């Protein structure tokens, strides 16, 4: 069991109580392969007997549809957009993530507050303002940042996915380039800069996403295994030094218990 810890002020009407689940965040740029990896991880975790909830931006019952409609009109102001996303996040946090964590689920989230913060800052929001709003967020057990340093490679992946460039994910509202490609490259560069700044601040585990899907998947599984299998009751005691080093590496979950697997 682990105590709930929030970045800032906890939500009203939320009972702060220990939870037995794990909150695992997969962050990274558009086209980096987050959703592919979340799907693979889910299968892997479930086949090992873990109950999994996966969630991601705009999937709330409250605001998901509203955001999609607003995005299609291209008339969404910058501050309005940030707050709509915060509403979506709060609804999922209170109605999906927290209940699942209390029930012992592994919650896999495709993006968390970090993407929202990076997008807002790139659009001129005051960094303190957007961070204060997301002070409602639960501190995750682990954050994996799929990092790809080359926006050109990202662009190639977006195209290969068959969906093409999205207006907002290309940052077209920012007027950074003459066409979707130029804008996408410029926008992703700005976002990467913000993400890199957050690595230390939030304790991201950085995973080099320029490698093959299989190698990234292996790295993710290894990282997640450490988080969900800490302090197993059967752990041998004869080697305390190694155990201590291990604990430091897996800092975010040091007081968590393992979920039955």
């Amino acid at each position, binding site marked *: 069991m682990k105590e709930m810890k929030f970045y*800032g*002020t906890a*939500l*009203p*009407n939320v009972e702060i109580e220990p939870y037995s689940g794990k909150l695992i965040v997969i962050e990274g740029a558009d086209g980096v392969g987050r959703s592919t990896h979340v799907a693979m991880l889910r299968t892997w975790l479930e086949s090992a007997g873990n109950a999994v909830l996966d969630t991601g931006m705009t999937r709330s*019952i*409250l*605001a998901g*549809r*509203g955001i999609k*409609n*607003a995005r299609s*009109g291209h*008339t*969404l*102001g*910058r*501050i*309005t957009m*940030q*707050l*709509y996303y*915060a*509403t979506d996040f*709060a*609804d999922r946090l*209170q*109605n999906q993530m927290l209940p699942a964590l209390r029930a012992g689920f592994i919650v896999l989230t495709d993006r968390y507050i970090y993407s929202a913060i990076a997008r807002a800052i790139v659009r*001129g*929001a*005051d960094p303190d*303002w957007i961070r*204060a*709003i997301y*002070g*409602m967020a639960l501190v995750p057990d682990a954050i994996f940042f799929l990092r790809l340093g080359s926006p050109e490679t990202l662009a190639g992946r977006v195209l290969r996915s068959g969906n093409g460039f999205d207006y907002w994910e290309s940052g077209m509202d920012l007027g950074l380039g003459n066409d979707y490609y130029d804008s996408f490259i410029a926008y992703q560069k700005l976002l990467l800069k913000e993400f890199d700044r957050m690595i230390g601040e939030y304790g991201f585990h950085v995973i080099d996403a320029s490698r093959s899907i299989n190698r990234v998947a292996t790295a993710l599984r290894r990282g997640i295994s450490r988080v969900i299998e800490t302090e197993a009751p059967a752990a041998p005691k004869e080697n305390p030094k190694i155990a201590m080093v291990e604990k430091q590496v897996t800092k975010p979950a040091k007081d968590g218990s393992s979920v039955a697997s």
Partner: protein
Amino acid sequence: MISYGHHRYPGRLFVVEGTDGSGKSTQLALLYQWLRSEGYSVFFSEWNSSPLVKDTTRRAKKRRLFTPTTFSLLHATDFADRTERDIIPPLKAGAIVLADRYIYTAFARDVARGCDRGWVRELYRFAVKPTAAFFFRAPLDVAIDRIAAARPTLKYYEAGMDMDWSNDEEESFKMFQGKILDEYDHMVNEFGLTVVDATQPIRTQQRQMREIVSRYLKERLKAKEALER
């Protein structure tokens, strides 16, 4: 992002605040008529009116999907859209904007629902500081009587039924309105709200309001004359 108190626009923004039944909308409508007849360009902006958010709010109220936090955030989203669409552009163009309810409504309601005072204020930091904010203050029993006369049934969130303070709608409504009024009273000094005694005759209240508004408009005209000279 420009923070509260730091926007510099040639237009003027006047807002009315107060509990339900305080008569603030009536007063704002009368002010609107007067300003129009004086030849000003006047825009009107209402609480909860963003076309991007309206449907989501309506559905959430109907299906009772809100928590205090999401209630607060969705109303802030609605307000942000109004700010970006209906409030800032006319102010930039030098027009007068009248707002029926403003950020103080959110501060009062959300804090009454248990949201953190500091968090809610931070949330609305992007808002334009009004030229003047009128708080129509009616004692609790007067406001409740007025609403009871106007509306036979109370809505779920309006009565604060989501807070489980009481199973009785009327009882819950009274408690909720009491908490809201307390929050408004705290804000009078914090934000320099202009208090209007809402138990006075309508004409008296309107006269007070016009006096104050015209003062801000005269200032503006004087400044303009000085500039032309």
